[in-house]
């Protein structure tokens, strides 16, 4: 059962939509970060994060850099990561998957797409 999801995106709108889309996971806490650096902080503060939803194109620290950092940390490298990509940056998505991300969804995505992928990855 999902207890905590870390959502990393520089868009306030996307965070609001996660809140909406992920409300079906009762008792699951949604932790938000606006960029990779903030996400690293959140990983340190919040224990027991089960899943990371990761945007790639962000200021300060982008998604790929963040992914690279957590892959080096034994405590974090086992947390599954879903890349949330945007049209036109396909090569970044491929790089992310090579770096260990478990799957990706392309914006614009539907709630059902995200749910399907989350279930597939977390029950695998």
């Amino acid at each position, binding site marked *: 059962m999902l207890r905590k999801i870390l959502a990393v995106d520089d868009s306030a*709108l996307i965070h*609001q939509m996660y809140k909406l889309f992920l409300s079906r996971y009762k008792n699951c806490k949604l932790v938000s970060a*606006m*960029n990779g650096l903030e996400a690293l902080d959140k990983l340190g503060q919040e224990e027991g994060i089960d899943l990371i939803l990761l945007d790639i194109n962000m200021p300060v620290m982008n998604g790929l850099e963040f992914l690279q950092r957590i892959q080096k940390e034994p405590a974090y490298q086992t947390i599954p990561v879903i890349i949330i990509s*945007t049209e036109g940056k396909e090569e970044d998505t491929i790089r992310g998957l090579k770096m260990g991300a478990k799957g990706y969804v392309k914006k614009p995505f539907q*709630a059902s797409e995200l749910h399907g992928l989350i279930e597939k990855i977390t029950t695998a």
Partner: protein
Amino acid sequence: MSDFQASPELLAIYLEDARQHLEAVDHCLLTLEREGADSEVVTAVLGPLHTLKGNSGMIGFPGIKDYVHRLEDVFARVQEDALALDRDAFDRLFAGATALRDAIEQASREGREARSLEAEKADLERLMMSEVPEAAPQAASVAPPIVRAPAGPAAPSVPTPSSAPTRPARIESHYTARSSVVRVEFSQLDHLLNLVGELIIHRTKLQELGKALAEMPGARESARELLAAVHQVSGVSQQLQETVMDVRMLPIRHVFERFPRLVRDLARETGKEIELILEGEDTRIDKAIIDEIGDPLVHLIRNSVDHGIEPPGVRVTNGKTPTGTILLSATQESNHVVITIMDDGAGIDAVTVRQKAVERGLLKADDTLSDRDVVQLIFSQGFSTREAITEVSGRGVGLDVVLKSIERLNGLVEVETVPGVGTKFIIQLPLTLAIISALLVEVSDRTYAIPLGSVVESIKLRGAAVHTINGRETLRIRERIVPLLRLSRLFGLPQAHDPEREYAVIIGRGDKRVGVVVNRLRGQQEVVIKALDPAVAAADVGMAGATIMGDGRVVLILDVASLFDGKRLAAVHGRLLPALEA
């Protein structure tokens, strides 16, 4: 397509973010046009564009998403030096940015895409097809319409800013600084401020109780402790109020940032060369004022472009640089923010203004008003010195609208001008609309608050000094005849018949004066303004709001500008007559 219906809340978040992203696009284009190709400037806009694209897709606006995607491609090609932008390309990109803005605003309002961007998208595609000529010209050789040139000696009235603003860094910080920001509805801050206001009211009440208790034998020790505790509460509630006020403040950049694009477009429309310099964009002011000050500033800037800055040829003939300068600056001075709009244009000719004012019946031909005062008449209703109506200003809306808007914000506006050298508009605004200094007055045992900023003086009214001219009571003060306005009559209150207890509070609006007759002056006080119910406000009752006193009483705050309204004075007059006939 998304499988959900975007809620108004999501649409509002989308729009707010999109506006920031659009500002970044405008800013990027302006900088590139003015300073030439700069990879850093382009990089700074790619992030916002990417986010805007993702957001537009998620909210269910595929047409907007596709257009932004193309725009991203254009900027990416500019960054790779594979595309050089000439004057025509900039015009098309600016037009496209405007169309995009319209489409986003409309879609956010209606919850669905209504304006097609297909034509604009095709235009971008055509733009991308154009090849880079041999030895790609940098923008400096592309003859940009705006040349960065500091105001030379020919324009002594416009000082060169002490530090030139470095814009690309600003966009970057603007874009990245958001991570520690929490979104709060402004209405919640308003509510918080109201609660703080009430806390202060109750604190005053506690203080009074403590003082009363101290008078009672045997309770002195308890009273002392109570008062000490109240003193503590006082300090904390004061800090709380200051903090809440501070949270409501936003940098004036939120208003200023749209002007570079405005001036650029106006300059193109009028065939003028204009550089806009912004200063003091970090000056903070109440959000309620930010929301209202945009339109008056647009009006004044349009005015400077249209009536101030001369065409390049005329400027050169007059020994000026071909490029005119408009300086828009903001500074905080104690409890006020002063905004100035200064141009090094033609200035305003007092002789012409005097002539027009006489023609329009605003001034008598033999009036001895000084030139400086005559020039202020441009703010009078129905005044306009230009015969021809241009695209830019002169749309039948005069500067009187600016004056009214600024007065609604409890502010003042003035103009200083030197013919041939330039014009400066000075706007003084309160830091906040939430708290004002007010003079408390009593009329027929009721208390009213008059915003102190409008009070010129108060005079003890003696029956002898009042003259009736044309059926109206007037007061002679030094060389002026000041009409009197009896609040008791205006509000239909029982009249107090004690002339010894009457005062005239002289209030000013520009050059005009009105004496408000009251029964008692109760001193000045800082009051927290509470808005009146729109139903009451719409009835045009002459009230700017209400406040609550320490003893819990509600006191109405007079809307000074409305007391100068001719119709209102006529209404008072009208009400007087039947009473006389009866």
